[in-house]
């Protein structure tokens, strides 16, 4: 309905008006000339009237915006130092925040890259790993046996598909049949036949595994991950349909998974091969647990039917669970039987898969998000300060434009346009920073993983986030300077060059105070986290870390049978100790701080069963305690006299002795594991000093590689057999000696060329890798703290320098009247010190408040630690003083004559 009237039409109307008005004035008796001028005067500036008409069109704002943008870009180009400083500062802040958000998005927010993830539901609230023994579970059933999976799959119609997969994962020795390469270790995961159809995943090449492959008697089929196909086989199409040797068994590679798919769980090392569950007995052999109803080892995820109610399915599954447990009541012991009624399960949204990483990383990602948010605020304060200075320098120009009739709104809009342009440019540069940052963080966070499923390149949500943060930042640092810009008196333009008032210094000072306060928070947070890391790394682990190496092996991969193991480890011992520089060697099921351990129920001979009778165990070869430097404080360690035929013996640690023997002498006492009938199985021969094997003060018992117990339960026997496959070889070297990788590999090859060394690392590296999260958190926070400190100091420098600049006359006058240089320096420094002191006054309570958030991440240090807070405060004050001293010294060197002449 609105139609634009041409400008010419309007001009014509104005001309008509002038004509009429001149005619009237002439009629009133004015001369032609007088009438002409009077009419024009009354109408005012025709150009302004025309412009106002033009502006009434609704597209004007866009035109203004473009005009402002062009003008801003021109102004920014004219002041490259300011522009580059602002953009770089912003890029650091936005980049830091964005890179942390990339991780948050990948770990906490993203769904699995599968079809309709919202339809997926998973069994369990918590994430349980690996294998759970027994027909009952504490709290909830989150992993199930193969038998229970089939029960759920076949009797729960609410699921369109219900798939099962390994809760742990396995390492297999894999070799391509054609070609002569040696077997290499690869990660494999057993999955049910409907795994891929449940996720809606199609093969990238070949075909996916189906229910047909997951039958007893089907020809062994395996699916390869795209990553392995690309990295190890160069996308060679002949791989599909080819035969691969896995743990010595022939498997046909039927297909390759699509590139983005990393399986069901976001973790640092994702499966290389997907195998049908039905092939588990073939690959695992004697340790197979597929037929054991009391071994839970499968996670479940299902796609529910459209319209099905998850809560109804959960209720039905609970009934099924109870029925299934009761069908096994006869095989359970009395205490487990009493727990049957309490057994329950939960169905939870499964679109994100098995979210173990979420549990591990959630809190520290939140901390990092907060820390980077603080950095962003400091960046905003810094850029706002720059803008204020710029605004001050432009005062003259602004007041002139206002005197010439520019409207305040327009001035504000121009200032805001400038800050938004800067923040968007900063955001774009920040994305580059974020990309580099994220790759670096991923490298540190998942250094153990061969390939991280987290993509460092920015995704759409990350781009949107960066854009949003840029806009927010621009508005935040732009509003104050924009508002300040309009608070100029047009009269100022007509006055002399230098304003006598120190206008605008209060907001600038406030910004510096805010920066100092935020920097203090970050500095003390980094202090606390660094101290935590130091405490964790330097506590007493109960074993020696220096001169110790851990070689991880898996004799299963080379096809060793349980009867051959004792001999294998003895031959490895002889071969490795023959290397010059190797002082001792021993084998162990899981080396300390390797991230894995077994536990079992303990029964003490002649004692009633304890309510919580769980203890952790490790199996070792003779000489282990001496090799790792774990002191025996009572009795003896294993020796050559402990053989398969002799009395079965055990070494326990201090916590074990305290828990199960309560102050009595444990030496000579008997205990057993898993079954009450075996309570007399092991005789305690020694007590070892508590070592930090897995976590703190766990009761631990050690068994000998040479001895094997006989259980009544087949699953227990299978476990006993598996525990004889020791995964780690520990060697200690003589002081000053270096033992090369090649020497070790040669020593292995001398025993068996088919036995691969999976990894080789020093024990101190292995221990340190447990703290990679803490280290990353401490390092990133320190980095952010440092950044905050630098920015804060620059801010203070800026304010002080500006103060000195605007007080040049005053200082010159003071000095002319006899003030000494020292008093000038003191005067300028006093201003800076007051600002920093205000920053500390605001920052200390803020620090104490926000360190509450850190409390759960701290170890061996109080969150109110006064030393760390003092160091942080000093770290803040010292550079701040230097930043203030530079302009103060410059002020003191002002020549009075020059200063006064400048007036």
């Amino acid at each position, binding site marked *: 309905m*609105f139609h634009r009237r041409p400008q010419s039409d309007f001009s014509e*109307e*104005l001309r*008509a*008006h002038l*004509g*009429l008005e001149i005619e009237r004035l002439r009629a009133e008796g004015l001369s032609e000339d007088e009438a002409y001028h009077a009419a024009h005067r*009354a109408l005012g500036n025709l150009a302004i*009237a025309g412009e106002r*008409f033009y502006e009434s069109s609704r597209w004007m704002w866009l035109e203004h915006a473009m005009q402002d943008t062009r003008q801003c870009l021109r102004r920014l180009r004219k002041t490259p130092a300011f522009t580059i400083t602002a953009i770089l500062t912003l890029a650091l802040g936005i980049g830091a925040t964005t890179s942390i958000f990339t991780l948050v998005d990948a770990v906490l927010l993203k769904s699995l890259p599968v079809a309709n993830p919202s339809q997926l539901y998973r069994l369990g609230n918590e994430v349980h790993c690996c294998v759970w023994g027994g027909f009952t579970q504490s709290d909830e059933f989150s992993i199930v046996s193969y038998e229970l999976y089939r029960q759920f799959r076949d009797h729960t119609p609410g699921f369109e598909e219900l798939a099962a997969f390994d809760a742990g994962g396995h390492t297999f020795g894999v070799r391509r049949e054609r070609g002569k390469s040696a077997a290499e270790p690869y990660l494999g995961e057993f999955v049910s036949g409907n795994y891929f159809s449940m996720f809606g995943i199609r093969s990238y090449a070949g075909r996916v595994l189906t229910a047909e492959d997951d039958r007893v008697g089907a020809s062994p089929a395996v699916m390869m991950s795209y990553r392995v196909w690309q990295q190890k086989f160069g996308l060679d199409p002949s791989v599909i349909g080819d035969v691969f040797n896995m743990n010595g068994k022939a498997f046909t590679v039927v297909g390759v998974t699509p590139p983005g798919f990393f399986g069901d769980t976001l973790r640092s090392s994702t499966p290389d091969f997907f195998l049908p569950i039905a092939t588990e007995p073939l690959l695992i052999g004697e340790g197979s647990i597929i037929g054991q109803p009391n071994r839970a080892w499968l996670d479940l995820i299902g796609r529910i039917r459209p319209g099905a109610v998850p809560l109804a399915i959960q209720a039905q599954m609970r009934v099924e669970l109870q029925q299934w447990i009761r069908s096994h009541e006869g095989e359970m012991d009395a205490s487990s039987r009493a727990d049957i009624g309490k057994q329950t399960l939960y169905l939870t949204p499964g679109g994100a898969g098995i979210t173990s990483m979420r549990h591990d990383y959630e809190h520290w990602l939140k901390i990092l998000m907060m820390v980077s948010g603080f950095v962003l605020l400091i960046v905003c304060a810094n850029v706002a300060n720059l803008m204020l200075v710029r605004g001050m320098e432009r005062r003259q120009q602004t007041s002139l434009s206002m005197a010439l009739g520019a409207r305040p709104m327009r001035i504000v809009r121009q200032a805001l346009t400038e800050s938004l342009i800067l923040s968007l440019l900063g955001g774009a540069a920040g994305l580059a920073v974020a990309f580099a940052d994220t790759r670096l963080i991923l490298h540190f966070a998942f250094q153990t993983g061969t390939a991280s499923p987290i993509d460092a390149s920015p995704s759409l949500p990350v781009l949107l986030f960066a854009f949003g943060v840029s806009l927010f930042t621009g508005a935040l640092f732009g509003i104050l300077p924009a508002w300040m810009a309009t608070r100029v008196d047009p009269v100022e333009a007509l006055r002399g060059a230098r304003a006598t008032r120190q206008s605008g210094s209060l907001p600038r000072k406030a910004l510096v105070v805010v920066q100092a306060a935020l920097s203090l928070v970050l500095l003390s947070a980094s202090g606390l986290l660094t101290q935590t890391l130091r405490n964790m790394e330097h506590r007493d682990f109960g074993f020696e870390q220096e001169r110790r190496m851990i070689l991880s092996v898996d004799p299963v991969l080379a096809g060793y049978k349980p009867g051959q193991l004792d001999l294998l480890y003895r031959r490895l011992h002889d071969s490795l100790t023959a290397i010059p520089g190797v002082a001792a060697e021993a084998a162990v099921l899981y080396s300390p701080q390797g991230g894995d351990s077994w536990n079992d129920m303990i029964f003490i001979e002649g004692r009633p069963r304890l309510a919580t009778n769980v203890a952790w165990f490790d199996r070792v070869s003779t000489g282990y305690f001496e090799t790792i430097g774990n002191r025996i404080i009572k009795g003896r360690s294993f020796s050559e006299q402990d053989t398969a035929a002799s009395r079965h013996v055990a070494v326990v640690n201090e916590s074990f002795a305290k828990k199960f023997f309560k102050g009595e002498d444990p030496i000579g006492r008997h205990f057993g594991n898993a079954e009450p009938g075996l309570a007399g199985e092991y005789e305690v021969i020694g007590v070892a000093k508590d070592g930090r094997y897995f976590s703190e003060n766990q009761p631990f018992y050690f068994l000998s590689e040479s001895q094997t117990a006989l259980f009544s339960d087949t699953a227990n026997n299978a476990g006993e057999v598996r525990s004889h496959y020791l995964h780690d070889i520990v060697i200690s070297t003589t002081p000053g000696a270096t033992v090369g990788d090649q020497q070790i590999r040669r020593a292995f090859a001398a025993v068996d060329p088919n036995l691969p060394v999976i990894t080789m690392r020093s024990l101190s590296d292995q221990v340190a890798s447990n703290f990679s999260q803490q280290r990353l958190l401490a390092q990133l926070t320190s980095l952010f703290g440092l950044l905050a400190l630098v920015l804060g100091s620059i801010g203070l420098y800026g304010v002080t320098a500006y103060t000195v600049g605007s007080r040049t006359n005053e200082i010159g006058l003071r000095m002319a009247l006899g003030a000494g240089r020292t008093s000038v320096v003191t005067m300028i420094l006093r201003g800076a010190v007051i600002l920093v002191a205000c920053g500390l006054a605001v920052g200390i309570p803020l620090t104490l408040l926000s360190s509450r958030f850190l409390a759960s991440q701290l170890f061996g240090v109080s969150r109110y630690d006064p030393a760390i807070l003092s160091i942080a405060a000093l770290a803040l004050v010292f550079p701040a003083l230097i930043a203030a001293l530079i302009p103060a010294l410059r002020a003191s060197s002002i020549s009075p004559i020059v200063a006064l002449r400048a007036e």
Partner: protein
Amino acid sequence: MLSREEKNRVALLQGTLDLLILRILVFGPQHGQGIARAIQLNSEDVLLVDHGALYPALQRLESQAWIAAEWGVSSNNRKARFYTLTAKGRRRLVRETGQWRKLATAMARILDLEKLEVLEG
């Protein structure tokens, strides 16, 4: 005779100009210069119309469809753009006038009250 400058003139409040334009157009179609002249004459030269502000106001009223415009010829045979009050504009005028009266009465009351208090004080 008093010269113009000596007269005590009142600058127009924002929004009042719109109302005055509508009021003048009740008498029939008029061009911009005529409207300005009419306001000035009818207010006995108290109200000063800024000619530069008049045209944007006309533009505003036209875009609200309260007045319509057409090119025509003035009484002294000059080409001019004539404005007419539309039905919508007439309704607007009635409502605005009512509000103005209310406001003016209220203002007068308060101002008088103040005068009394000042006198008493």
